[in-house]
């Protein structure tokens, strides 16, 4: 009975894996198809589409533009998210739960509503749609993720370390800079990679706050709406490889640091 259950469940797991991977694999295959027409069957193969996108300055520019937005918004979210985490973790004060719910708010608002709210607010503040507005909206949206990750790490910092530092003559600020911050580094790095990916992949905020220059997801969306071009496969594949590589690297990195601590 148990054995049969196990086999059935294993089948369910592997079919789920297929469901997750097959569409992406088909898309990657399509990028190597030697025909202008998207669809199966694939009769001959080519690298032309890759050659074409890597010699298209507009597409390369879009890659760079998206990456610049991702990096700048990540820097802002990481600094502010960490600050909020330091304020919230391990302290009790009046209004703690209000601050916590305010902090988590951008992560819970459904995508379209958050984009609309940012659009209206940007207009009110006088921020023109464009790069600055996108960076700002991504930064605000990603703060909760940083704060949650950093708070989790901060809660495991042994209090005795800070006390020891204070006993040895460190002032509170120095104890923070030299004990707390280094202890938080793995969490901060992990959170930044997460923010980078969130920002790089974000569509809805970039779409509603963008000006004439499109980020990568917005460009792919526009290409899809104006009719399928085989270049999309190649662009999407490059985006996929980039994000998956960053993700795998981060996962390995955080696992290594965690293991280093355990052993």
């Amino acid at each position: 009975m148990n054995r049969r259950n196990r086999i059935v469940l294993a089948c369910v797991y592997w079919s789920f894996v297929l469901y997750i991977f097959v569409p992406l694999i088909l898309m990657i295959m399509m990028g190597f198809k030697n025909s202008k027409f998207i669809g199966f069957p694939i009769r001959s193969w080519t690298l032309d589409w890759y050659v074409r996108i890597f010699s298209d300055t507009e597409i390369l520019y879009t890659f760079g533009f998206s990456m610049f937005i991702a990096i700048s918004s990540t820097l802002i979210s990481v600094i502010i998210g960490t600050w909020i985490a330091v304020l919230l973790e391990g302290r009790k004060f009046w209004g703690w739960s209000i601050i916590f719910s305010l902090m988590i708010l951008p992560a819970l608002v459904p995508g379209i509503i958050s984009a609309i709210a940012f659009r209206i607010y940007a207009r009110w503040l006088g921020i023109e749609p464009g790069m600055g507005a996108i960076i700002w909206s991504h930064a605000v949206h990603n703060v909760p993720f940083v704060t949650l990750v950093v708070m989790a790490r901060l809660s495991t910092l042994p209090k005795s370390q800070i006390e020891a530092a204070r006993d040895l003559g460190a002032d509170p600020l120095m104890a923070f800079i030299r004990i707390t911050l280094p202890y938080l580094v793995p969490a901060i790095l992990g959170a930044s990679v997460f923010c980078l990916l969130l920002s790089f992949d974000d569509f809805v905020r970039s779409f509603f706050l963008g000006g004439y220059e499109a980020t990568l997801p917005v460009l792919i969306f526009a290409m899809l709406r104006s009719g399928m071009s085989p270049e999309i496969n190649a662009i999407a594949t490059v985006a996929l490889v980039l994000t998956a590589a960053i993700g795998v690297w981060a996962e390995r990195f955080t696992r290594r640091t965690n293991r280093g601590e355990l052993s």
Partner: protein
Amino acid sequence: MSLVGKEESEKNAVAHSRNGRPFWGRFSSWKPYQTLLRFITASPRRQFIILAAFPILWLLTQHLGPMLQMARVSVLDSYPVAPGTPQYLTLDNYFRFFGDHIFWMPFFRTLTFAAIFTFCTLILTYPVAYFLARHVSRQNQMLMLLLLLIPFWVGEIVRTYAIMILLGNTGAINLALKWLGLIERPIPFMYTSFSMGLGIVYLTALYMLLPLYSSLEKLPKSYTEVAADLGAGAWTRFRRITLPLTIEGISSGCTLVFLISTGFYATPVLLGGPSTTVFAETIAGFFHYAGDEWPTGAAFAVIMFGAALIITGLFQKLMKSLRKGDAK
């Protein structure tokens, strides 16, 4: 575990201070630093205020601000206004929602679809999470979970596009069916509620899987073993022990997936058709124009957010009462 970790990092701290003492020593006796320090730590109260001021300002202006501004615009008669013209407060934007079925139809469709898709995601991922948490060794658990994580780092648009290739008239499924001789003409999967559902479940599955996995993983194996020794069958064990004790994971997973799937814009646009217009598209429609329709769009966004919050709130209450009922 934590003890060993502590020793390790204490060792590190010592090593650091040995290497770094000259710099940090000089730094901490540096005049500007000393002044700053004295200014900050004059009293615990001031220290707290300096720590808290900026985050509170940020949260109020950046996290709460956009939502409040959206609510304010939703009760204005026009926005943005030409300078010099008076603005009136009005609820007309909200009444407009009830006046026309092209507005409230997508609204109820969105909520129904989101509920159905959430349920499908739950049914689909529960066995997967159960298998990972119960039948796989610890070492492999992480690897097999990581395998599922990789595709989820890929963005919404790219994965939606992948679904389009899978389901299109010349897509993989139609080709396979034709090859098997089951069909002669391709089945139009695309631009239906089926393609949209498949896409949304594909995009949100992980947000369900992770909470389920963590709540299943916390559940001690001995509980079900004891029940088995006492003669409970597999189904009874699942219904009486596993399911009630993982309700927390189910509740948070469903809330997350529901909120996310009500907010999708690009996926319904690309995968859905005219008969599956969702409310996100209705709202977005008001923002594609110069701006005089913004108040209505804002009002609709407020309605949608309110409805989503009320539904998830009620759902969580229901789950809580279920859990309590079982504890008795």
